[in-house]
């Protein structure tokens, strides 16, 4: 970089100016705070909510919110570039100062999100909200927590870099060339992302759509800025960008509402053992018809006895035969099958599974309800956007070891619906194979 002393001094001045001047910093915190709070309340009051839902929603929505804040911030500061340029400095020093400042905001936003998580955790622990089935075992793992924050930070930096790069491309190459070059980079990135297993389909779709949306906004803002530059009414740019950012925020709120409403229908409040319940399981890489054809499971006949091994799957035809004509519950993306197991059976099926998991599972089958009580630390935390990558390490390790024998890669997630533990087994390569899992379970 080769910064001279005077440039470093100037950068420091700009940072001081940003901090003194930029009220958006406070706004960003307020914004994140409100969204997180909104989210937490949604999760808290949602029937059938459980700790997994809360953490999943928390992850996704805070993640979303922060990204939107960053993008809005970026757009708004685009409009105030001139404002900053009225103070002494060169493009280089202003640019560096701005990046440092923005990365600082990202960091602080992530920390704020983390603090909100901790506050929620403490509140729930103290209040024992709806203790009949909700938050009986709120989970908190420092390791997972830190991992989540790091992941949030990484993704935001990535997106920020993308937006910044797009800005720079347009500034340097002009609008048309800038878009062409950016599209090429985006295409390459998408191909790369497709081949990076850490991002599942949901994450990729989300990231790409966010980036594309960012492009649309920036293109609009570019036209606004160019058209008013001639009249030198820079304040109008600022105002227009704020309006655009406002619309953007509005859209995000709608997203949030949609998301929270989808959370509301996850899982029954209490599980009726005699109830026949059909889960329609969505899988992003499958068409609706394929899903209907292949991924229809009936969880039924949960007669709780020692040999309870109650996965029952059926095709759409079988479902029709049994009079099941409708799928009334969407769970979430990427979940391919539901397995409910008796720990004894589990033990037999997974002989290498860490003993402490098994040893700490107890069964309570009173009142015709199967209840598997697991130690808190064994309940896996969820990951991002429909993927499950933050599983309990041992559980995943063991599962992978078993699956590896089959020459395929699968993962297991645990969710707790009401009083039941569900194991979701799915293929990490996103290739649906119902038979694989069923066979696997039976074979083992």
């Amino acid at each position, binding site marked *: 970089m080769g910064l001279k002393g005077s440039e470093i001094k100037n950068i420091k001045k700009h940072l001081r100016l940003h901090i*003194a001047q930029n009220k958006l910093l406070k706004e960003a915190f307020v914004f994140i705070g409100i969204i997180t709070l909104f989210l937490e309340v949604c999760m808290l009051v949602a029937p059938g909510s459980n700790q997994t839902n809360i953490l999943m929603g928390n992850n996704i929505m805070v993640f979303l919110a922060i990204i939107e804040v960053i993008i809005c911030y970026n757009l708004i500061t685009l409009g105030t570039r001139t404002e900053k340029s009225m103070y002494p*400095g*060169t493009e280089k020093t202003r640019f560096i100062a701005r990046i440092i400042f923005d990365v600082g905001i990202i960091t602080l936003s992530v920390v704020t999100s983390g603090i909100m998580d901790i506050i929620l955790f403490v509140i729930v622990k103290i209040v024992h909200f709806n203790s009949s089935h909700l938050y009986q075992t709120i989970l908190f793992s420092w390791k997972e927590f830190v991992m989540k924050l790091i992941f949030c930070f990484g993704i935001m930096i990535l997106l920020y870099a993308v937006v910044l790069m797009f800005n720079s491309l347009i500034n340097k190459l002009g609008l048309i060339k800038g878009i062409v070059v950016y599209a090429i980079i985006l295409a390459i990135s998408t191909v790369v992302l497709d081949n990076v297993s850490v991002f599942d389909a949901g994450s990729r779709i989300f990231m790409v759509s966010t980036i594309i949306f960012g492009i649309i906004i920036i293109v609009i803002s570019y036209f606004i800025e160019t058209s008013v530059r*001639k009249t030198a009414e820079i304040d109008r740019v600022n105002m227009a960008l704020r309006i655009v950012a406002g619309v953007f925020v509005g859209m995000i709120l709608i997203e949030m509402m949609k998301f929270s409403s989808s959370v509301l229908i996850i899982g029954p409040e209490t599980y009726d053992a005699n109830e026949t319940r059909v889960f329609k399981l969505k899988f992003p890489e499958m068409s609706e018809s394929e899903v209907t054809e292949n991924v229809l499971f009936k969880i039924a006949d949960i007669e709780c006895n020692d040999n309870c091994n109650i996965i029952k799957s059926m095709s759409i035809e079988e479902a029709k035969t049994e009079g099941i004509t409708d799928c009334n519950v969407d769970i979430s993306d990427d979940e391919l099958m539901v397995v409910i197991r008796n720990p004894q059976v589990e033990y037999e099926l997974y002989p290498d599974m860490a003993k402490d998991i098994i040893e700490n599972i107890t069964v309570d089958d009173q009142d015709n309800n199967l209840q598997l009580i697991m130690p808190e630390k064994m309940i896996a935390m969820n990951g991002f956007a429909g993927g499950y990558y933050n599983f309990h390490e041992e559980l995943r390790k063991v599962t992978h070891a078993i699956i590896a024998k089959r020459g395929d890669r699968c993962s297991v997630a645990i969710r707790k619906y009401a009083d039941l533990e569900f194991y979701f087994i799915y293929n990490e390569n996103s290739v649906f194979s119902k038979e694989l899992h069923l066979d696997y379970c039976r074979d083992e």
Partner: protein
Amino acid sequence: MGDYSIVVKGLTKKYGKKHALRGIDVSLHKDEIIGLVGANGSGKTTFFNICSGLDSPSEGEVSVLGMNPRTDVEASEMIVYSNMRLPVGGTNRVVDVLRYYEIMYDNFDIKFAMKLVRMFDLSEFTKVDKLSTGMRSILHVICGIAARCEITIFDEPINGIDVSKRKMINKIIMGDYIEHQRTIFITTHILSEIDNLVSEIMLINEGGLVFYKGIDEVREMMFRADGDKEQLDSVFDEKDYCFRQDGEMSSFVIGYGSPNGKLANDARNKGIKISSVSPEEACYYSINIGDNKEVETLWD
């Protein structure tokens, strides 16, 4: 270079196909108060946007105190650009704006700025977007003066300011210049407001440089000769004047040269009344906008 604050060579700025500046070559003196004069849209603001590093030239070179204002941070810190159109963030209070200047300019004299704020009855805690146009102009002028930069640029500093305050501002600029000598540029299209303040004038028109002269030189550029048509014809050829108006009762020409020069004296000897032309009028006639025939045809 040592005697010059700003040196530009072949400075051209284009917005699309439109030329805002056309190949300006000029070396502006140091430690002077220089008025940059031109009609609306003549390129005054563009010129200083480039000189202050806010904008880049399409062609040509700009050197400020021997440095490139766009890439040398030292140069940019020696320039304060007071421009009412630059937003300072409407929701900021007056005192906030002063604080920002204090952060950014090492020599910013906050005490002096506060004195001026009180002198002009600007409430320190009023938000900038609640200020009237005139008050906002004053705020920018205060910031520009108190920054005490080696190069201080005021772009249309007296816009929207009433007469009494205009005079105060001129006095303050002059007073502060005497106390802290530096190069001050003032752009305006109303030269009469500042002609007792500036020592040099740079006139630009349609993006090109018309002249850059000392104010006294400008005063000596032209004279007005009033007489009857025959008298004027007997002294002035077409090449001797830039503007002529013939009327029923009397006629006049704006002749080239000093009111005390040979041509003016010849005219005087023939009974023609000679008077001086103000710097503003000199600029006015230099860019040939004295003839408003188009206006006269509006009601035809």
